[in-house]
């Protein structure tokens, strides 16, 4: 028996308590603390990834939305040109794209990669060894 018992132990509970409290506790698996602390530290990474992804994506999305609102007609003309060129045998599809839009799209791509990594990596860590 462990020597300890709850203060409110009732007489009817004593036989089972005596029986169960003799079961010795299992030792903690080796490296348990380090494994927990490693996972605690790892948890911080996705948070930063989400923040950086947000910082990159939000201005880019805002800029692209602005472009679409103000130059949407040019976008649809450019898209039509590309579709027509793809349907015909012609290789002449005219469209104009400025450097800022390219930069916004590139930043959005980087943000998507970071967000994907954060969302994929966190559940994989959360599942732990039993699920592997």
């Amino acid at each position, binding site marked *: 028996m462990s020597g300890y018992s*709850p203060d409110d132990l009732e007489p009817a509970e004593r036989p089972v308590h005596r*029986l169960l409290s003799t079961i010795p506790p*299992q030792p903690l698996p080796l490296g348990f603390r380090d494994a927990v602390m490693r*996972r605690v530290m790892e*948890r911080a990474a996705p948070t930063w990834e989400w923040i950086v992804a947000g910082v990159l994506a939000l201005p880019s999305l805002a800029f692209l939305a602005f472009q679409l609102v103000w130059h949407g007609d040019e976008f649809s003309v450019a898209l039509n040109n590309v579709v027509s060129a793809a349907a015909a045998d012609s290789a002449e599809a005219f469209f104009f794209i400025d450097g800022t839009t390219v930069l916004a799209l590139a930043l959005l791509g980087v943000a998507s990669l970071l967000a994907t990594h954060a969302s994929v990596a966190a559940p994989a860590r959360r599942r732990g060894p039993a699920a592997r």
Partner: protein
Amino acid sequence: MKACLAGHADAYATLVERYGGRVFNIALRITGEAHAANDCAQEAFIRAYRALHQYDPALPFGPWLYRIATNASLNYVQRWRAHETTVEELPDPPEEAEEGPEATAVRREELAEVVAAMAELPAAYRAALTLRHMQQLSYQEVADALGIPLGTVKTHLHRARAALKARLAARTKGRSA
């Protein structure tokens, strides 16, 4: 604890060390598998760390942590139906040095029977018995840990003890037959 709440992750290592054994044993008795228990115990500490801002420092840390560990273990059992378990190798009890080898063997066998009978009980009963009789928690602490009313805890424990006795009797009968 104050250092933990202030956001010092290293201070949390001390808590993991202090409560690790109890949390692991709670998870072990509920899941019945050492690997699952290890995973659930780790998960409990991770969840607790993330929820530290919800913890009330005026209350003891143990029961709060045990509640998280119990939930993680019960969720695991519910998800994976891990209640059918084999009896794991029991470590040597502390009194062993004073007993003869024969008495020790008998004692280990008896304890293995108890663990096996307990493993046959529903997960909620195992959780209640573990917290009450193996972790020595009061009725109120068990109720807090399981998130159920005090009256329900008493009913659960009463039924769990009766079920355990019945299983043990059946196993003893089965062995002697």
